[in-house]
């Protein structure tokens, strides 16, 4: 009996330990930590100020006065500043005939400096070599060569043979969070893994050289950019060196609606020219996807008091037939919004009831870097960090939209006070600027001149004769 009692005690203790170990182990490894991230800042000769944009536009011989008017109006009121970046072949005047090697060298110029700098940065605080990377996810929506861009990165940096690599393509401006979701899922079934996420966009093979308005918008908004992020589920590494911890991630796909599916897509116009079409239904599709996403996300991140208040207010306001808005600021301190364009930022701001301060990071990113597609939210995050606004315990909501139509959002929690200026180092002091109005606003006012058509024809004739002119504005 004594022996049985002793045996039972041992079994009991062992079983308790096994249970506790299982539970604690699962709990420790289920978290996804952001160790560090870098955003791309291309070199200065790749800047695309407004007058250079005007030159590029005027090189397109199939544009008439109405198209010039439209384009100039868009460029001036886009919210983009004078320091956004473009790919080399467009600045060098070869936008009409992009080659495969142009596209590949453009991606090499984005991805390789990103990987170099992320390793340089993390090696200052802890040692990490390319062979420590277990998972690699690359997302570039509009260019997908064979071998993949992920394989190019593996070839250059010598990652291990058993690396889990995924190359996502065609997933639009929200691909960054889709990649984070993929990594998070892998983390849940593996222990102590380190993942490298590379997010960028290819512009040179996708420049539109025609005159269809819905397809010219892409030329005005998309700019070069990219980011590299290191994530891990190693509790030791993440706990000591992590910047942010991922709490929630919600994906919404509105593909079942035909209008939403085709509102942002790659197309050929009637003359067979490639471009990215943005339709009039885009704001409505975005709004619908946004609300569907919010419906799932809000209950997960808002405090109970706010949920209760919202429910009561909705019941009350139903009687007065007006919409009540949920106060996201009760659950989130910072908003990292995709810089899809001025209208997108303002639309989200209105829907969430956000003030200028909350929208400032997104607006400033749009001004400084333009719409860098999937990597834009990381630039916005970097702005907040550079402004030293991210304090331990604060929550950040990242929200992205993309073709398909998708709306993805996630909630990060700041693990320690962050103050790295990153890609904003040389210009953060100048932000926010006194005015965001385009400096060429007055200069291009001529487009409304009644004699504008004559001027445009004179310019075109001059170009045909081989006269050298800087741009349309020389005619004034």
């Amino acid at each position, binding site marked *: *009996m004594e022996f*049985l009692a002793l045996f*039972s005690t041992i079994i*009991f203790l*062992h*079983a*308790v330990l*096994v*249970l506790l170990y*299982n539970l604690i182990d*699962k709990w420790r490894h289920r978290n996804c930590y952001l160790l560090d991230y870098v955003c791309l800042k291309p070199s200065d000769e790749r800047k695309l100020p407004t007058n250079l944009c005007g030159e590029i536009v005027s090189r397109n011989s199939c544009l008439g006065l109405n198209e010039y008017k439209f384009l100039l109006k868009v460029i001036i009121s886009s919210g983009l500043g004078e320091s956004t970046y473009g790919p080399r072949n467009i600045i060098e005047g070869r936008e009409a005939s992009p*080659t*495969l090697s142009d596209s590949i060298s453009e991606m090499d110029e984005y991805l390789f400096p990103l990987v170099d700098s992320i390793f340089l940065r993390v090696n200052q605080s802890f040692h990490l070599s390319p062979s420590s990377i277990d998972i690699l996810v690359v997302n570039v*929506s509009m260019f*997908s*060569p*064979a*071998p*993949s861009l*992920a*394989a*190019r990165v*593996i*070839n250059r*940096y010598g*990652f*291990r*043979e*058993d*690396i889990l*690599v*995924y*190359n*996502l*393509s*065609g*997933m639009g401006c929200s691909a960054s969070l889709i990649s984070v979701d*993929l990594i998070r899922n*892998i983390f*849940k*079934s593996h222990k102590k893994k380190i993942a490298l996420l590379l997010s960028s966009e290819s512009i040179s093979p996708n420049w539109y050289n025609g005159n269809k308005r819905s397809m010219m918008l892409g030329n005005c908004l998309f700019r070069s950019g990219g980011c590299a992020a290191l994530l891990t589920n190693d509790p030791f590494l993440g706990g000591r060196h992590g910047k942010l911890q991922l709490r929630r991630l919600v*994906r*919404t*796909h*509105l*593909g*079942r*609606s035909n209008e939403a*599916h085709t509102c*942002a*897509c*790659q*197309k*050929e116009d009637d003359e*067979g020219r490639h471009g*990215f079409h943005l339709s009039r239904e885009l704001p409505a599709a975005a709004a619908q996807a946004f609300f569907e996403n919010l419906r*799932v996300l809000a209950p997960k991140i808002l405090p109970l008091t706010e949920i209760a208040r919202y429910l009561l207010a909705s019941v009350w306001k139903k009687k007065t037939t007006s919409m009540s808005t949920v106060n996201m600021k009760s659950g989130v301190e910072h908003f990292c919004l995709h810089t899809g364009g001025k209208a997108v930022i303002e639309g989200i701001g209105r829907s969430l009831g956000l003030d200028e301060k909350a929208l400032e990071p997104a607006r400033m990113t749009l001004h400084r870097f333009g719409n860098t597609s999937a990597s834009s939210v990381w630039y916005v995050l970097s702005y907040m960090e550079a402004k030293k606004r991210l304090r331990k315990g604060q929550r950040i909501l990242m929200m992205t939209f993309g*073709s*398909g*139509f998708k709306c993805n959002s996630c909630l990060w929690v700041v693990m320690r006070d962050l103050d790295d200026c990153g890609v904003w180092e040389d210009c953060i002091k100048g932000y926010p600027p006194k005015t965001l109005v385009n400096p060429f606003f007055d200069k291009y006012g001529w487009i409304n001149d009644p004699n504008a058509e004559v001027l445009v024809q004179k310019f075109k004739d001059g170009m045909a004769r081989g006269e050298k002119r800087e741009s349309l504005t020389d005619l004034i």
Partner: protein
Amino acid sequence: MSPAFNHYKLAGIILPSIAATAIVAFFLLPFPTPKQTLIILSTIVSACAAAAFLLSRPQPVYLIDYACLRPLRTCRVPFATFMEHARLCDFFDEKSVQFQMRILERSGLGEETCLPPPNHYLPPLRSLEGGRAEAELVVFSAVDELFAKTGMEGKDVDAVVVNCSLFAPTPSMADMVVNKYKMRGDVRAYNLSGMGCSAGIIALDLARQLLQVHSKSNALIISTEILSPNYYAGKTRPMLLPNCLFRMGASASLLSNHPASRRLSKYRLLHVIRTHRGSDDRSFHCVNQQEDSFGQVGISLSKDLMAVAADSLRSNITAIGPLVLPATEQLRFLLALIARRALSSSWPPYIPDFRKAFDHFCIHAGGRAVIDELQRSLRLKPGDVEASRMTLHRFGNTSSSSLWYELAYVEAKRRMRKGDRVWMIGFGSGFKCNSAVWRCVRTVDGPPNGPWDDCVDRYPVEVPEVVTFS
């Protein structure tokens, strides 16, 4: 190897029986002494620990069913059609035409392989819209057939993974599938691109990762290659090979981890092993998309392809060997490895006999040379590679979906029995070698219901080394 029984059932049996026993004991038996309490507690907690351990094991993933595209007769490209088409295209010179003819003669392809409609034009149409139309044709046919076989609808799907290497429009093909089948708003869609002919197994791996995390879910995997936007209209020889070998094909498969799906499913996924040799320059450049000197884009296949494939296979079997080989083979492999390292590197490497581990082999039908090389490397008999050779003959190189056509061949020949193990091996640009191991959980009986329906009785055929035609 994981136990054959479903450990959820076991946990589901243990916990309620503990609870029942505890309740009965509490009410019926006299209050126990401290010693008895200890015994009872230890039994209960050990049982709970065992249950927790079982629950934390990886969830089993089952293949409910799969479907392959049945190409239309109107898309058929017999040799005569292919050669006439090549002669009539003015961007090919006489030497290119002769080269393509020689490749076709030795390719192992038959007279019934298919090319998509835009490729039948003179010159072949290469456009974004043509590519989209081709994608809709091949993908929707395969998915429609899969949904008809399984009784599923779009709204039942929890995840979609599409892999297509050379065509990735925005919105992606995964989004196109979500749109067509009106899938739910919380569906997880992923679109892999640029990952070569082994991307089907990468998609399988991705789906498996998702199913480890989300219980009672299913995933739809679509593997295809879209050919029309990638037709090579130039004269460089290494870049003409894909025109000759790649053919139209697509597959759709449904994976699930729902405990109830075990009875309905055909196979259980045991392992997925991925090997990436991209860090080696020779491997990285052997399948390369590039422009020729006239600016025409195509895929160039280097002469090193076979050697690179053999190297990557060796890496893959080193990883997969310990998981699947019986102990004797592993021991012999290990001893040979030690002998090579310790004694002399000229000691011949021991190639394990994988026929002891697997009953069926599905080797990517990349070309006759690839199948020959693998047969030699793995010491396989002609019967083991019959599925691959016949798929190459009937359907050509359909890229990542070829493995599924081969599996369908084995089933159509009524060779698949419950308990049989299948090894799928894919190779692709990068250079990658990926393997998937399946076990059949239900003998596949009944009339054939796949792409081989109308022709399996004519197979196997003897494929001559060189087919001569004028």
